[in-house]
């Protein structure tokens, strides 16, 4: 294979990876701050895709407005879920919070998916494209305008999120809670407010991913499973709760996938990515950039 072909594969991988990174950052954020291993992430992706579909296809608004609608709606749904489900659990649960919260997200995923199924039916809804046309990146590679737009949206959002966490007051508060919950409470951070805001933010990222990928993945009740699994690969690869690592990991998984797709054909990319991931995790359980995972023998 020629060098230009390899470059093409890497570029395709980067395009895929941007969106995985976007989803994975949401997962890492909610795990880092609230210790919730989010299994319902894909369902927020699905809601985002549906909202964008109704915005773009039914109301016929500009795609950017449709995306913004998706982000706002998913944010609100996320906050409602946090207030109605995790708040009562936090009040009642004393031990085994991580496992209980994880199982709870499984239940949430089940409910949201079936609400979509009952309400909108199992049919695929989608649009063919937000913006028509292709953009040629290298002489041998043409990428549809939508994919470019999706990648740009992902990168812009990640940079914006980074700035937000770095330099605003509430962003700093979120990072403080992620580092030490008790310490954050001591300096006067309202924990409850940080929790609902973070959860909403994390789900909004998933919703944005669903909205921008609508032409590629369509919208149907179980559309979120695949992206959710992929973002979990990313999070486990780099270490749970590492937000900056999740960005890098997204691109790694994207490139791995595009290569295995090219060399082995469809269907195998899951097996290849998972095998590599499992091998890495067996030797370095904390992931590539993660903090140390505690073993049973440690204190």
């Amino acid at each position: 294979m020629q060098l230009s072909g390899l470059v093409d594969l890497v570029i395709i991988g980067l395009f895929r990876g941007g969106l995985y990174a976007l989803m994975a950052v949401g997962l890492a954020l909610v795990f880092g701050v609230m210790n919730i291993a989010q299994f319902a992430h894909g369902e927020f992706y699905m809601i985002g895709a549906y909202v964008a579909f109704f915005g773009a296809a039914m109301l016929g608004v500009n795609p950017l407005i449709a995306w913004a609608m998706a982000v706002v709606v998913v944010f609100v749904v996320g906050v409602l879920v946090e207030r109605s489900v995790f708040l009562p659990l936090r009040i009642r649960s004393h031990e085994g919070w991580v496992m209980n919260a994880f199982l709870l997200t499984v239940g949430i995923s089940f409910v949201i998916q079936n609400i979509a199924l009952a309400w909108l039916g199992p049919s695929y809804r989608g649009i063919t494209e937000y913006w028509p046309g292709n953009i040629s990146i290298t002489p041998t590679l043409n990428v549809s305008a939508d994919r470019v737009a999706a990648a740009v949206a992902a990168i812009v959002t990640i940079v914006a999120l980074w700035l937000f966490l770095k330099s605003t007051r509430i962003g700093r508060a979120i990072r403080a809670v992620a580092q030490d919950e008790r310490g954050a409470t001591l300096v006067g951070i309202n924990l409850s407010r940080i929790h609902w805001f973070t959860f909403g933010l994390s789900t909004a990222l998933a919703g944005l991913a669903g909205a921008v990928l609508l032409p590629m993945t369509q919208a149907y009740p179980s559309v979120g499973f695949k992206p959710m699994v992929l973002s979990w690969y990313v999070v486990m690869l780099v270490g749970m709760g590492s937000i900056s690592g999740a960005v890098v990991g997204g691109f790694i998984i994207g490139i791995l996938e595009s290569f295995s797709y090219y060399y082995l054909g469809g269907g195998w990319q899951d097996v290849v990515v998972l095998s590599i991931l499992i091998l890495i995790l067996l030797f370095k359980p904390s992931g590539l950039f993660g903090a140390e995972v505690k073993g049973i023998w440690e204190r």
Partner: protein
Amino acid sequence: MNEINGRSPTAPKNRWLDKVQSSWRLLGFSPIGLLMLVLIGISPLFIKNDYGLRLMVVCLMIGTQAMAFDLTIGFINVVNFGFAAFVGIGAYTSALLAVDLGISPWIGLILGTLVAGLVGFLLGVLTLRLRGIYAAIMAWFVGLALMSLVTVNVGITRGPLGLVVPLFYDRADQILYFYIIYPIMIGTLVVLRLLTRSHFGLAFRAIGGNLGAARASGINPVKYLVMNWTIACSLAGLTGVFYASYFGILTPAMMHTKQTVEILAIAYIGGRGTLWGGLLSAFLVIPIFEYLRGLLAYRWIIYGIFLIITMIFYPGGLVGVVFWIGNSIKRLLSRRNKGS
């Protein structure tokens, strides 16, 4: 001299009776529970139609799976999120042996259990050294990888087209299958009951409750965690073999995370760490859902909300409700006795 503390020593010839008695006490079936099990056992005498019996068989199978699932989540507090994949390993082992080598599914029952247990053991050894959610997510990933492997190896497993598996019997009488799964269920219940009521069960609970304290009292956590995990996985494989040779067709979809979630829901609604709760909720939930079929997807929403409410507000599940009713009746009776 023979009498110590006024108790006469047991005569040697009665020792076996004592043993039976003490192991019976260890098993701890209440009379009502025993009656229920016997009633389920003789139910084919009353249920004559095929549809009803089929429902009974499915309830027994799901109930057995829920009990095996509960052994991990209810006792050591680690969720086996690849449970459906272990069911699939058992099923595909027996099915491929039967299809390619002509080995009867009866032998498959043993081999499928062993293979699923072996894979579970290896996974447990590799992942259970680490704390928290790690083992659950790894089991999930391994389950997903196995499902994709089965899906893409079309030459061996026929992939999504489905593998046609020889049945246990040539005839399709439901009653024959009922009396395969019924002993499996009873066996599972007895084994798990004995296990969890022995010192192993105590160790499981200790590890699940507070790892530090368990270690301080001299429990080797890895040993018990792996043991628990292996037993649960081999039981999953056993029910998988039954699944394969009962339905006669296997698709990779049976290993999907969705199936794990369904078992999880049944086990949770029954009550965590109770074992028979899973069986009880299988016998309640599955027939109710068959009955409510007209509601379509709305029944799943109700189900899910019910699951969430159970998780947050009532971790005791159905078993908790049963005990609450029993206690209230007792209190009512004692109050009446006092009054008269």
